[in-house]
Each structure stands twice: as C-alpha cells, then as structure tokens.
C-alpha cells in the first residue's frame, strides 16, 4: 500500500515507543506525527496513558499549566517528544536561535519546557522532519537543553532516538553520539551523511526503514485519525484526507 512520509514517520516512532516499557506519554501541541504514533500504539492495544497538551476539550490537567512539569518532576512521564531549530551530534537541542544570544541572527520561539523535560522524562524521542545540514549541525549555536549532563546533575533520561524525514538515529548517552538505525526508502548511508552536519556511527548491516504494514496504515487512517480530528484538523485533512464533521 502506498503511504505518505508522515505515516512512515508515525510508524517509526510507534516502533520506538514499543521498544521500551512505556506507561505514560506526554505529547506537545505542535506534534501531530508523535501524537499519531502514540495513538497508533494505543490502537494496537498497548495500555498507554496519553496526556495530549493543549487539547482543547479534555485537556488532561486540572492544576493549571504547571501540572505537566510537576507530573514529570514526579517521574510519571516515561516518554516526551522534543524537536529543535538545531540539533547537534551530542543530542543538544537549540530552540533559542542563531547568532549572538538570545538569537540575534535567526530567533526561534524559545525553549518552552525543554530545559526541564529533557532531563526529567524517562526518555525523549527527538523528532524533526527537516533533515538538512542547517538543522542537524555539528554544534548548536545555543543549548536550550543538553543531550547529556555532567556528574552530579539529577537526570532521569536522555534521547532514545532522533527521527527525521530521511532516517532514524539511535542515541547513545554513554558515548554522547548518534548511530544510524535505518534510512528511509530512497536514502542511503551516503545521502544521510551528505545531509547531516554532525558525525554519527554506522553499525554493520544498517538498512532501509521497514515500510508501514497494511494493518498499521489502516489503523492510522481509521481509528487514529478519529482521535486526532479535533486537535489536528489540518494534519488529518492533509495526511489522511479526512475532514471533521462540520
């Protein structure tokens, strides 16, 4: 069955979620692909608790907007998603901007909760669809949140992986380096290297990212899309070609 890139990425992320024990996932507002991945796991039968931030009806928080951070501080969030205007080979992320602090060249919106969530979540999946030397850099201009921490700093988790429009990287916090896990159809180790600004390891036998199965695609386009229509109408229209009832 043919599929859209977003569907492939959602399936990639869903596989990463299922690769480790996961009870509670929080998904940010601007994250339809991670949200689709989390819903896919739920619809595949995983007993997951999803907290969808900025969901207008049924917003999960009753203690104001600090509750997500308190919840994460308590160690109850097993998995969070982060992106970045820049991401570097040590999994540092930059949501501040480029040029002199605080982003005098290009200013991104700001760090949001990253400088806390990246440490205090059980683990983080980094997701950035654009895969270019502009985004995946050797060294971020500014660190909103670091990929690893010095001794003496309380840190519950690190990046598990980085999923882009071209490949999946695994992150190794002990080494502070990414390794290529798989490249998407149409890419190769060489094309990934050409489009990536940081060095990464290439294990033996790295191959193509498996395509979504028919069952996965059917779930995404059916039950997952049903759940997402209210919060992400544009995404559902574009990717799944479905519109919410008026």
């Amino acid at each position, binding site marked *: 069955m043919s599929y859209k890139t977003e569907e492939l990425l959602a399936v990639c992320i869903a596989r990463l979620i299922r690769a480790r024990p996961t009870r509670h996932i929080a998904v940010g507002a*601007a994250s339809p692909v991670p949200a689709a991945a989390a819903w896919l796991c739920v619809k595949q039968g995983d007993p997951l608790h999803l907290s969808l931030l900025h969901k207008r009806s049924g917003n999960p928080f009753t203690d104001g907007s600090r509750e997500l951070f308190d919840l994460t501080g308590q160690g109850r969030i097993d998995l969070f998603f982060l992106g970045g205007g820049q991401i570097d080979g040590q999994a540092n992320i930059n949501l501040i901007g480029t040029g002199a602090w605080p982003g005098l060249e290009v200013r991104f919106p700001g760090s949001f909760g990253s400088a806390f969530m990246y440490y205090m979540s059980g683990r983080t999946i980094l997701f950035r669809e654009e895969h270019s030397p502009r985004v995946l850099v050797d060294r971020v201009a500014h660190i909103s949140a670091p990929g690893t921490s010095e001794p003496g700093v309380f840190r519950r988790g690190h990046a598990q992986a980085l999923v882009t429009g071209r490949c999946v990287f695994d992150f190794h916090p002990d080494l502070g380096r990414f390794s290529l896990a798989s490249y998407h159809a149409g890419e190769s180790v060489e094309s990934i290297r050409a489009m990536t600004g940081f060095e990464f390891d290439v294990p033996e036998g790295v191959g193509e990212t498996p395509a979504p199965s028919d069952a996965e695609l059917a779930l995404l386009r059916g039950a997952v899309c049903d759940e997402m229509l209210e919060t992400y109408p544009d995404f559902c229209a574009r990717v799944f070609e479905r519109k919410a009832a008026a």
Partner: protein
Amino acid sequence: MAASIPDGAMVAVPPDNSIPSVALAKALIRRRARGLRLVGVPISGFATDILIGAGCVAEVNTSAVTLGEAGFAPRFSAALKAGTLVVRDATCPAMHTMLQAAEKGVPFMPLRGLIGSDILANRPDWMVIESPFGPLIGGSREKITLLPALHPDVAVFHAVMADSAGNVWVGRRRECATIAHASQRSLVTVERVVEGNFLEDERLCPGAINATYISGIAIAERGAQPSALLDEYGFDTDYVMAYARAAKTEAGFAEWCAEHVFDNQAVAAE
C-alpha cells in the same frame, strides 16, 4: 483599567491557551503604555506580540513567544533584532517556580533540569548550589538551581465571569490563580457578571479566584479573542494568521493596529 497600570510595571500576561485579556492589552496600546516588563505564564503569545509591536514593552521574561499555528511572533522577533527589547529566556517550569515562590512568600525555590543549558548561563539571577537533601549522585551532592521569587506588579487576564462578591471564575486555568496570588494587583476582564457567590457553590468554587486578590474587574465581551476561552469560544486561527502576515513589517503592523486596536475600542478595559 489600563490607565491604572503605570509605565514600567511588571505585568504577568498568560499565553493564548490560558485566557489572556487581549482586550486589556489593546487598551494598554491605546493608552500608549511604555516600558512594560512582561512575564510569560509560562510562555507568551498574541497579546505580548501586539504590545511589543506597539512599543509598550521594554523587557520580556518568558520561555517562548509564539503565535502557535500561525508561527513565529513577528514583532517580538523584530524588536529583539532591533535591540529595543530585553529578552530573558527561561524554561516553562522555571517561570512557574518563580511565580510559585512569590505565591508562597519564600525568597526562592529550587528546580531540577537547567544545568548545562545556556538558559542558565544567561541568567545571572539564578544560582546553582549543592542540594543538602536528596540523592547522592555519583557519590556527591546533587547540583540544583535556585530561582528567586518573581513578584509581578500586576497580573492581567480574562475570566469567564465575576460574581456579586468580586470573585472571578477561570475554571481549569489555575495558572491565573497563581499569578493573581504572586502579583501585587490583578486586573481581570470578564465576559459577564453574575449574581451570587462562587465560593458558596461547591461546583464553581474550585475554578474561582477569591476577590481578595482582585483589584479591578471590567466586562469585556469576547475579551480573550483571538485567544480561546475554555468552552465559550475557540482560538481564531484566521485572525491570528492575518495578523502574522500583516505584522511581518512595521508598516504592516501599524496598519493592522490602526484597524484592530484604535478603531474598535473595548471601552470597558480603559
């Protein structure tokens, strides 16, 4: 009401998903406020961008400034580059923590995370200590950051309704209660005023803020728009998209402002 906020005041303004009083922000523009120091709760949105665009803002202390689906905040970015705006970058739970320290009447509170972030490196007002409590990490004491209490002069937000006793109802948007507690004064626009006392109604009470924190209330129907107000009305994406396009340039912002701020007054919030 905007007249009571002096130039230079530190003003806490919640973002688009947390019932900002856009009506009062527009009134501040009309009264040509200057030198405001805005506090994001914990981030900043549309109301902050228009205040910056109109030259009302000297400084913003926040975790992000964004128009959500409509993208980057154009007047914020422009002012930052022009060097007319001091930006103190934070991270969301740090904003909450600094406000909660003020709420609790303590001079500081600790927060994990942060260490190794350039946010911390650029906050000389934050301090890393060795925690006297908590786990030993690698045989030594945990390093942890202490953040000072942040006391805004004024909290400005919108609420669904006020009652006869001057209590206001914000429902699940309890961060509005925190800024009301942390701030010297709170100025609130509301959709409507109703008879009775929310505090005597077990169903309404948990989403109410006691009148003791509220210095002023004004009716401003649809006063959060284009931001959303709980189940009363949604985020007006088209309006904010149109703003984002217009406000790409200073001239475009001025034109937008002439039409949407000066021509369309919500007199109640003056």
